[in-house]
């Protein structure tokens, strides 16, 4: 259970696939005009990621290593098509809003990266958890970006009016250029936070080293004193 929470935190925050690993840029930029679409895209990719991680992990001894990438792609594209068909039948408006980006989950580098780096080397259960963690991390990043773009660009959040009508809508944020720039600033903020954390960790380490060094020095001095005495 503790391991599960740790993996979850890893996927959503410390090792977020979009904000830290910088993977899966196409859907991140394209489907974040509205929070609803970002949510749909995130959950669709999560579903595919969980299924593909599970099956690739189950088949990891069966798949010949020479053709593993081809095998992964076939398995992933199968699940993507299944998700596409299910969305078409039960979430029709979302299916239309996401358009071509549902089949393009196939080439989302996050999914192939997790298959190659994690699921092919680990047992099914941790692989599924990894899928959940990375999928939620992806969804979280998408919703975060979409929130900024939808609030500033359309004055709404998840379709609800949040900014007063008098506030001018900055259409720039829903255009492609706005996508790049919003993501740029968000990743800069993440880097700032991480740099700060790294700096603090480094200072802590230095402080403890210094304390250790002083303690040793004191000890030696005391020893010397004892000797002289």
């Amino acid at each position, binding site marked *: 259970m503790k391991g599960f929470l740790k993996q979850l935190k890893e996927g959503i925050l410390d090792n977020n696939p979009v904000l830290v690993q910088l993977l899966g840029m196409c859907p991140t930029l394209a489907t974040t005009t509205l929070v609803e679409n970002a949510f749909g895209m995130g959950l669709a990719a999560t579903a595919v990621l969980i299924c593909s991680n599970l099956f690739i992990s189950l088949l990891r001894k069966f798949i010949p290593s020479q*053709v593993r990438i081809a095998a992964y792609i076939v398995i992933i594209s199968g699940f993507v098509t299944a998700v596409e068909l299910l969305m078409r039948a*039960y979430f029709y408006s979302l299916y239309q*809003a996401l358009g071509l980006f549902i089949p393009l989950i196939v080439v989302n580098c996050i999914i192939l990266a997790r298959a190659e780096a994690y699921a092919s080397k680990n047992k099914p259960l941790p692989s599924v958890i990894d899928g959940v963690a990375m999928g939620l991390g992806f969804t979280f990043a998408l919703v975060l970006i979409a929130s900024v773009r939808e609030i500033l660009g359309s004055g709404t959040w998840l379709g609800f009016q949040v900014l007063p009508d008098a506030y001018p809508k900055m259409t720039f944020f829903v255009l492609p250029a706005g996508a790049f720039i919003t993501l740029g600033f968000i990743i800069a903020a993440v880097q700032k936070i991480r740099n700060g954390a790294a700096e603090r960790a480094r200072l802590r380490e230095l402080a403890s080293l210094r304390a250790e060094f002083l303690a040793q020095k004191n000890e030696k001095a005391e020893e010397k004193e004892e000797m002289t005495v």
Partner: protein
Amino acid sequence: MEKAKNNPWQIAVIGLKLLLICAIVAGVVALVYTVTADAYAKNMEAEKRTAIEGIFHAGVNPVDVQGEVGSEFPVYRVEENGAVLGYCVEITTAGYGGDIQMMVGYNRDGSILGIQIVSHSETPGLGDKITGDAFRSQYVGQSGQLALGDHIDAISGATYSSRYVTEGVNKASAVVAKCIAKEATE
């Protein structure tokens, strides 16, 4: 590794394994397709009905006449209690962000009764104004081939989307002209 590559038996095993995976994946997808096919067809049907009823009114009866008039787009003669109210053409044109799918309704004299945008992926905040009343109501009452600027004002900042919709409406009007001509000869 090198040795494995040269051994035809091992290559055959690898090929077979890959083939097996492909076959299973195709099977699973086919299964999902069969299970969801009905629900999808229902969605399409419901969507079409809502669009037609949005232009005319609830309770009308659309009759498919695409084959009869020899049109390349789906055409419906809209009837109520046996009387012909008008026509509806379902049209899909390439938009700025993706396909624009719309339903154009006509009175019996060929003038436009209303248009409904069924689905689109135009830019939110700009191109998606084609779904707004202000833009769509410009078409109502017009007939014949329309030109952007002369008959229809483009949405500022979304000339493309406006032009694509107008092109689609023009195609639909051509089909309806055929329907009316056919009705006159009968």
